[in-house]
Structures are given as structure tokens and as C-alpha cells.
């Protein structure tokens, strides 16, 4: 299955990636290759197999509702490109 150019543009937008024309073509080929590999898997007949979301047989891993101290504000903001009033300052976002 070959992805269309529009599909790659849409995926790039969702991933917040700005791609040049060349990159669009390059990733179109690479992503299409990945999909083709999955097409091989799709040949297996799974009619009677329930969907599996988890390969490891684990369930009900829960913890008690207990609070413990968080990190200091200065540590939390250590990687912030910009901070103001104890908050991360980011580009304007509109609802």
C-alpha cells in the first residue's frame, strides 16, 4: 500500500513536524514500506482470535491511594525554555 502525499502531510501535521518537499517524498516511501510489512501480517487468519492489546499476561496492577512529596518547583521548571510566575511560559494557544 502506497501512502498518498496528502496522507503524509496530515501525519506530519499531527506529529507537529514541518517537512520539506524532499522529506515528504522520502518519508512517504519509508512509511509505505512499514505498512507493506504489516500487510504481510494481515494475511494471517484471525477470525477466531480475540484482539490482544497486551503481550504480557499482567492485569490489575494497582497502587494504594497514598500521596508523597512532589519535586520542588525549581526542579520542575529546570528544563523550561521560559518561565514566569512559577509557570512554564509557552507560545500563545487558543481554545
Amino acid at each position, binding site marked *: 500500500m502506497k501512502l498518498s502525499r496528502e496522507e503524509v502531510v496530515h501525519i506530519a501535521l499531527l506529529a*507537529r513536524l514541518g517537512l520539506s518537499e524532499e522529506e515528504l517524498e522520502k518519508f512517504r516511501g519509508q512509511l509505505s514500506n512499514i505498512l507493506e510489512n504489516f500487510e504481510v501480517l494481515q494475511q494471517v487468519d484471525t477470525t477466531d482470535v480475540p484482539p490482544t492489546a497486551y503481550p*504480557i499476561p499482567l*492485569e490489575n496492577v494497582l497502587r494504594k491511594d497514598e500521596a508523597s512529596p*512532589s519535586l520542588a*518547583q525549581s526542579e520542575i521548571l529546570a528544563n523550561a525554555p521560559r518561565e514566569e510566575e512559577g*509557570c*512554564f511560559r509557552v*507560545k*500563545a494557544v487558543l481554545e
Partner: protein
Amino acid sequence: MDYETTVGLEVHAQLLTKSKMFCRCSADYADAAPNTHVCPVCLGMPGVLPVINQRAVEYVVMTALALNCTIPEYCKFDRKNYPYPDLMKGYQISQYDAPLGVRGRLDIEVEGQKKRIGITRVHLEEDVAKLTHRSIPGEGSYSLVDVNRAGVPLMEVVSEPDMHSPEEARQYLMKLRTILQFLGVSSGNMEEGSFRCDANISIRPFGSTDSGVKVEVKNMNSFRAVYHALEYEEQRQRRVIEERGRLVQETRGWVEEGGVTVSQRSKEYAHDYRYFPEPDLPPITCSRQWVEEIRSRLPELPDARQDRLMAQYGLSHYDASLLTTSKAMADYSEACVKLNAEVQVEKRAKAVSNWISGEFTRLLHATDIQISDSKVSPEHLVEMLDLIDEGTLSGAAAKTVFEEMFHSGKRAKEIIAEEGLTQISDAEEMKEIVARVVAANAQAVADFKKGKEAALTFLVGQVMRQTKGRANPTVVNKLLKEKLEESA
């Protein structure tokens, strides 16, 4: 043309857990400085792993059971992807196709009619960070991110589109909130944002099978706002259909100041959340035994309590439903009734109910205080009621006394002594006052004799004024009639 309105509601309620949904940061961030209830899990740092808060799961199962939902055997969490800075990870952990509760119902009462509203699903997710938008002249606009709220357990309750008026929607919300409060799983505070509501509303010609165009309304921060926003939308949609023939499917925001909804069409492309099973969290199996164990621990719910208040204390349906609008109020009134075992239960319950739903509620609303935080304890209220019963305090003066109790926290006896509000029980003293009032109001007396009943009410009022409400109105009435007849 006549139109029919269809409303479905999505409610998000923060759960009252100690810690967050997937980490051990405190979930009580109300008075915290920004970004002080945050850890690497909240920030979605590489390599961190979320772990499910057991109590949050239990709270959602409790709610789902209280709403008569089925609890599926198999539940799981999913990633909902969207790029927005209120999500540090770039996705929200939510539940997509295997929620904790499905297919329930909630009964509401509108204008005396019982109505059943379907519950589509109840699921668990995490709250997001708080954004504050700033705009500075010359510097442009930007946003500030406080991550304290991110990761707080958030329960979503989705209703079927079974409501057909703004009033039904409001009743549904109030009932749902009361249930959450009775369960103790959420504070249900809408103004503070711990209980939020989005509405889907459409209209269609009566009898039509066409489902109409659905509009989603957001930003409603009170029950009043939901009611007014839906009322506004009903009218707006009708106007648009009649003027332009068709509506657009869109999201609109309620603007409180203007009393209008405005379009929020900012996203050019449709939502593409790309849900997939959360690989960091194993699924949850709800064994039947565990579900039944939770069911057996459910507290008495509002409907059951209302029925019991009627059966046990002889309260009317109306009184019982008012007292069960909040758990605190129901607890308070029952505490009052139980305090003095010597008075007749029905009579006392009625008196308690009248005070709580009348004067008390009025003062609570006016001062924005919760009944459980009031200075008037059940003991204080009962003491006052006992004073009325034994004739020390008149009903009229009690209003003054209660208001003082409410504001100062003093006991009724103290206030009565300080202000000299003991009911006048001396018959001679009363007769004198009545005689004075009759003598001073010749016109009213003449009117009464001409058959004007209202003149008597006026004279009673004058006596009450003279005595600062310390007289018993029934006695005043009787004495006045006697006096007027004797002078006839």
C-alpha cells in the same frame, strides 16, 4: 413550526483521592503554588511509568453501580493523542472502548413527573494542566502552564440524548452531583471546576425522525449557566433554521457576560485522536466478587434516603426531596430530629425541615456558607426549637434570634436574654398593648367594622411591631377580635 429539543450531557468530575491518578503527587492542589504538585510522571519525562490509583478505580465503579450501570469484566486504558500544551505527554490517558461502566440510568423529577435518563458510559481518565492566557502590548500574547492539575483523577459520565429541555438537563446535573456527594467520590463544585459539564443539543420539528444537527456547548460554569446556555441555543438554532434553512455542526462556547454562545471553530481539521491501548498500563479485570463487594459498601443514595425520610419522619415528598438535595443537609436534619427524643417526631421533623429549607438556606446562600460549616450546630437549632415549643420564644422573634445565631454563633438563650426577646406570656400585659393599638388606630378599627378583614391583619402587625415580635400572633389575633367585638 414547533420544535423538539434533544440534549445529551457529558460530565467531568474530579475524584476526591489523596494522590493523582498515575503517580503519588497530592491531588489536593487547590491552594498550592503553581507547579509544586508535579513529578516526572506528571511531566511525561522519558522512561517514567504510570501506576493506577486503586481508589480512583473503586470510586468510578461505585458511581457506575449507583447509576445502575453494568461493570464489564474487562476494562482498559487508552491513549488519546492530541497536541496541546495542557497535556505534557502529548496524549491523555483515558478509556476508549472498554470503560469501567456501561448502560446505566438516572431517574430525575421534572414538574412532578419522574423521568428516566440513560447513562451511556462512565469512564476514568486524567485531568490536564491549567493554562492562563496572557497578552502584553508590544510583546504579544503567550500562555502560562501550571501542571498541578494534570494527572488528577477525572471521571467522565456520558448520558444518552434523553433530555428534552434545559430544565431536564439542570435536574439531571443536580441529581448526578447529589449522588456523587452522597457517595463521597467528588466535591461536585461547579464554580471551582471540580464538576464540569459539556452539552450536546439539537432541535428538530416535532414528530420528525431526522436527528437534527448536533451542536456542542462548552464553558458553562454553573447550573444556571447550563440552563441559560441551552435555552439560548434552543432559540438560536430555531432562528438559524427558519432564516437559513440549516445549521452547522460545531462547538460553541457560552459567554456568561453576554448571555450568548459563540462559535469556537478554530481547528481546521477534524479531531484525529488516534486512540490506542495504553501500553504502560495492564488491563483491569473486574471480578464479579469484587464488584459485588463494592456494591455492598454503597451508602444510602438520595432516592432511598428521600423515601426513608418520608416513612420514618412523616415528611412530605416535597420536604424530603428538598432535604436530600445535599448529603450535608440530610445529615444535618436527621441529627436535629434525633436530638430531642421527647418531642413528637413528625412535628419536630416538619419544624426542622421548615427552618432548614427556609430561613437557614436563605442565609447560607446569602453568605455562601455550606450547612456543615455553619456556626449553627444541630444542637443550637434544636435548643431554639425547644424554646419555641415551650412558649418562651415566639415564631416571629425566632427569625431574629436565628439570624443572630447564624452570624454570631451564640445560642438562642443568650440572644433572648441580651435582647429581651422572651415571648410575652402575661395576659394582662398583652391586653394592655392590644388596647393601646386599638385606641391609636381608629381608622383601621372602623374599616374592620365595615367588614374589611385586611384591617385585622394590619392591627396584628401593629401589635407585633410594638412588641418587637415577642407576642404570639395567634394570641394577638384572639385578643384583638375580643377587644374589637367588645367595643362594637
